[in-house]
């Protein structure tokens, strides 16, 4: 089987989402997705990584990942390039699964469970306004989630009060006010619902320590990114100040960056974003790395529907999965307009995908939308890193003197 074409699709309605389809001469189409700075990802896919895959065998997923990563790492890996690699990696796994007529989870270990608990990140889309409602009626939001069978939620109560000082100054009275929704929920519902705290990397270390100390009586499920994961020693200092586990974090790129937080003990919960950190291949490796330190993973979402499918394959196959993020406002609001079938969340559990490969397709009508931007790559190109013509290579006639040419 050979890859024949790379196609990207994005829509103005959701300017940060981009889907990639990898087409093959066998008629199989693999689907991938990522989120954030979509036009930059699009350029990376068509001008940088995609042409490397054309005419190649899609089954060699690990080899393609290494080739793409090395090309990117030549000038320092990360950002939009790693998101492009992630999306392409998902699509390659999708092809492999479809070709073998098996769901991806069967290829990366088989099921260790058939479903995984989800928690709801308080979002706002359409009729669901959890993110706003939680400030006015926190107990109502929590009860509504419990009624849906969802027993965990994530809130970012301190984002707002970090803004005015760039996180450098924390006023005690503001923190008290910011934590009021969580106190109200604890007063009314006790520990019926678990509450995770996401700080979006907005604080410096001493303010983060103050927040974890003040939140101790509220028994959060975890603290996530109160400080940006730029320094594992700083995170370790934060972890030492609290009994609550520290979760890091969707902005770490590849297992190499996760390693430092896992080995140092700074991370007690590992939260890779599959569509940012390197796709299914890399997230699985991160799960393995975490498992050797007896740590769970809790994959990140707030991205798009394909990410949920890809994470579902990780969640049902890897032994050390704790819980899966779910944004019901986005999932119930717009995910279903783009993919068919939709993933299933039943009684607070994300169910194992059905069918072969990833288990879903991008609806064909998406490419026809008036606000869609569709771009194709058809021409192969080799990576200059593996080109036989590099200026540092010995001349042709001397190469026979090497034992490994």
């Amino acid at each position, binding site marked *: 089987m050979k890859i024949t074409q790379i196609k990207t699709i994005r829509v103005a309605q959701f300017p940060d989402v981009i889907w990639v389809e990898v087409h093959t001469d066998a008629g199989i189409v693999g689907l991938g997705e990522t989120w954030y700075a979509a036009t930059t990802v699009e350029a990376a896919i068509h001008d940088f990584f995609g042409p490397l895959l054309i005419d190649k065998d899609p089954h060699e997923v690990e080899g393609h990942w290494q080739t793409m990563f090395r090309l990117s790492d030549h000038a320092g890996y990360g950002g939009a390039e790693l998101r492009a690699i992630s999306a392409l990696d998902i699509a390659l796994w999708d092809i492999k699964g479809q070709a073998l007529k098996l769901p991806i989870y069967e290829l990366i270990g088989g099921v260790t469970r058939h479903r995984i608990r989800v928690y709801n990140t308080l979002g706002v889309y359409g009729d669901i306004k959890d993110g706003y409602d939680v400030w006015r009626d926190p107990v109502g939001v929590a009860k509504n989630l419990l009624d849906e069978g969802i027993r965990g939620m994530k809130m970012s109560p301190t984002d707002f009060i970090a803004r005015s000082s760039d996180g450098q100054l924390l006023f005690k009275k503001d923190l008290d006010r910011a934590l009021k929704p969580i106190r109200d929920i604890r007063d009314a519902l006790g520990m019926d619902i678990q509450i995770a705290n996401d700080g979006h990397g907005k604080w410096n270390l001493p303010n983060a320590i103050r927040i974890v100390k003040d939140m101790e009586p509220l028994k959060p499920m975890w603290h996530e990114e109160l400080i940006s994961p730029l320094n594992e020693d700083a995170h370790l200092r934060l972890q030492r100040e609290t009994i609550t586990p520290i979760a890091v974090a969707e902005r770490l*790129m590849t297992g190499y960056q996760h390693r430092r937080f896992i080995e140092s003990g700074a991370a007690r919960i590992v939260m890779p974003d599959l569509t940012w950190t390197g796709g299914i291949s890399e997230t699985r490796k991160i799960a393995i790395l975490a498992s050797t330190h007896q740590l769970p993973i809790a994959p990140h979402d707030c991205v798009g529907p394909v990410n949920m499918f890809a994470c579902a394959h990780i969640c049902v196959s890897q032994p050390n999965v704790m819980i899966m993020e779910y944004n019901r406002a986005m999932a119930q609001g717009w995910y279903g307009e783009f993919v068919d079938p939709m993933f299933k969340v039943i009684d607070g559990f994300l169910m194992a995908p059905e069918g072969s490969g990833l288990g879903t397709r991008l609806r064909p009508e998406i490419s026809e939308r008036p606000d869609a931007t569709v771009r194709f790559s058809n021409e192969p190109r080799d990576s200059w890193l593996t080109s036989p013509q590099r200026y540092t290579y010995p001349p042709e006639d001397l190469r026979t003197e090497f034992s490994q040419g």
Partner: protein
Amino acid sequence: MRITKFETVRVGEQPHIIWVRVHTDTGLIGLGESFYAASTIESAVHDHFGCMLVGRDPLATERHWMDMFKLSDHAGYGGAEMRAISAIDMALWDIKGQHAGVPIYELLGGGVRKKIRVYATGGPYNGAGDLAKELVDDGIIAMKYGPTITIATPTDGQLLHPKDLDFALKPIRDIRDAVGDDIMIANDGHGKWALPQAIQIAEAMEPYDIMWQEDLMPLMNPSALLRLQEATSAPVCISERLLSRWQFREFIENGAARIVMPDLIWTGGISEVYKIAVMASAHQVPVAPHDATGPVNIFACAQICMSIPNAMIMEHVRPFFHGWYNDFVEPNLPIEHGWLHAPQEPGIGTRLKAQVFERSDVTVKVSDKDVRVGLPDENLECYSEDQRFKSGAYTTPDGWSEEMTAEVHDIWAYRKQQIIESDSDQS
């Protein structure tokens, strides 16, 4: 002063290079540069960062760096986005220097030296000895080769036959045979090898008195690199691939890096390289900025090298300097007899030649929008406060005290006022 538009310039002849020009309402234009996956950088400049900065005061370089980095780091910083940030940061410093009427190094701390030694990178497999003689005659006292890069390919760096290594080191032997110790030799490994092979290479090169061993291994694990440093007497040097002070930190702190080699146009621009240099100085480690890209990078590195106490030596590629750089910038680099001299012009010290814009292979793109395309989606956390403010998307949650809400509105009003004041300054 306000930023009015972002302009990127690429040419087919040098497909990896991208120049970024930041225009202001005063007519001052700042020049920046980056290298690698240029079209991806172009998209990041126009669609991601530029639209955030249009309308702002260009002099607030630290604020802009912070906002761009946060915008990028929301989904994991690095790659083309860091290169875009680097190019924009350089251009903003260029504007600041021109505005003040002095070279950038005067704004960074003033000159601690008037010139810095350069070394020459690259050379052929056959004829290394002749090249070394030529360099010595030209006043250049150091050179860099990468003889082991290519022999890593067949095994992905996992196995190295001693015979292949011996064969690959021929250029190094030729150089020593030709000029003895008249020239220092650095070895660049381009991150190809596993740890035992890296140690094997460093050990085999010990007799040749290597100036530094650079990037023999991928820069993924500071502990592993420390093991290499402990196994060789040559200083270990890293690396153009590390992005921002946060990635350099651990390698510097654990002692794995004895020489620090940031690439200014990849790692975060003038602002970030200055910080990396300060951090290195706290560990008594020197800085040897990376090149092999474009002419504007060396101008920016010259500004750093003149102003930081711990600058060691500056990289350059001699065929580029004598060749295609002349087609694109005016003036070309002040390099003479092995020394890079302090740039004299205000700002970064050079301009793109007008003829660049008339080339048939040029791609020029301009953006002057101050709101990101496709915005606003008020539910997304990541957009900058400025954008949310401009788009009217940002609202304070219900239930906040009036004081708190007023404080946030004060900050927005303050930023808006800065723009208005800078407008009236100009008129």
